[in-house]
């Protein structure tokens, strides 16, 4: 197969774009898509300090790499979930990447903040591991950004992630998540930082290809708790659709952004308070993270 741009040997075919690219032209394509995402949603400027949440996986390290290449001012944030070898190895990947690029990396041990590492939370609170983990990550990302003075947090969510999340929300008609899901969430409260997803235009296979072609040392193995996750099942269903109808994932998610989300947004009307304990933003009196930490403490 030949590169659409230069006619050289292609390394990757992108069926939904009806194109194939050689290494340098694919890397160009990838960077352009990120630049387009940042521009279209005014994610951040070159003057702003961006906190990039990194997990050691392909998406977040690919994101950090592009932003560094493009000359943005970035700092990495690694949340140490305490998930056995998986966390040890993924942390080492983040540290290695930061060292190689002379970039700053903040490390927050979740156990210190929550009172237990992620693998212990389920037995202590009966809350499913991934749900406790997701809640903790969102909370700690926002808090770390506020404490260190970052106006914006960037995460490595890609098109497959966004399409799978959308699919899950629609299966249950969860109107609040449907009103909120967006490549860029503005700060709606002084204690909420902006959250952006500059990879939302790129598929999971494209971010993996970018990481591979840029020789980024990322962790290929999965978090042990990911096994059997419903989000993985949704991804597979969508990839089956994609196989027979290239562009299906793109049309599903982009169509939602254009036509679906505005309708749900009009329905949403949430009041934001500050948590009575930690002062972070919540819709109740005590935030989800403080409640979870209470449950952990009680179980001890």
């Amino acid at each position, binding site marked *: 197969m030949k590169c659409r741009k230069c006619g050289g040997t292609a*390394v990757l075919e992108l069926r939904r774009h009806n194109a194939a690219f050689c290494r340098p032209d694919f890397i160009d394509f990838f960077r352009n898509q990120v630049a387009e995402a940042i521009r279209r949603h005014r994610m951040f400027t070159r003057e702003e300090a961006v906190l990039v949440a990194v997990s050691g*996986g392909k998406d977040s390290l690919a994101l950090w790499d592009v932003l560094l290449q493009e000359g943005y001012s970035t700092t990495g944030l690694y949340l140490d979930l305490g998930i056995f070898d998986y966390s040890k190895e993924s942390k080492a990947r983040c540290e290695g990447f930061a060292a190689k690029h002379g970039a700053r990396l903040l490390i927050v041990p979740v156990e210190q903040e929550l009172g237990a590492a992620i693998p212990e939370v389920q037995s202590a609170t009966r809350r499913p591991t991934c749900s406790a983990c997701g809640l903790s990550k969102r909370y700690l990302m926002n808090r770390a950004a506020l404490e260190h003075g970052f106006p914006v947090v960037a995460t490595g969510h890609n098109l497959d992630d966004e399409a799978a999340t959308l699919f899950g929300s629609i299966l249950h008609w969860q109107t609040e998540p449907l009103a909120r899901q967006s490549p860029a969430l503005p700060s709606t409260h002084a204690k909420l930082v902006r959250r952006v997803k500059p990879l939302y235009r790129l598929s*999971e296979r494209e971010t993996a290809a970018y990481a591979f072609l840029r020789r980024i040392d990322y962790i290929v193995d999965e*978090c042990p708790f*990911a096994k059997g996750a419903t989000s993985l099942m949704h991804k597979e269903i969508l990839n*089956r659709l994609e196989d027979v109808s290239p562009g299906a994932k793109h049309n599903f998610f982009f169509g939602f952004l254009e036509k679906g989300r505005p309708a749900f947004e009009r329905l949403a009307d949430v009041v934001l308070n500050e948590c009575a304990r930690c002062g972070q933003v919540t819709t109740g009196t005590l935030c989800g993270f403080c409640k979870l930490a209470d449950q952990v403490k009680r179980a001890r």
Partner: protein
Amino acid sequence: MKVILRNPRREVEVAGRRRVRELLKELDILPETVLVIRGDEMITGDTVVGDEDVIELRPVISGGRV
């Protein structure tokens, strides 16, 4: 040829020449879910692979993230 799969890591032997596209179909793997790697290069679906090749099919789908 030797085909390396991950999660869990395993290897399968496949005999004969064919296009990558056909190899994936035989192994029941969706093209959208893997990178096809030969040596230290990625190859496209129309590339012909044969007995002497070692091919890694690296999964790209992940569930765990920040």
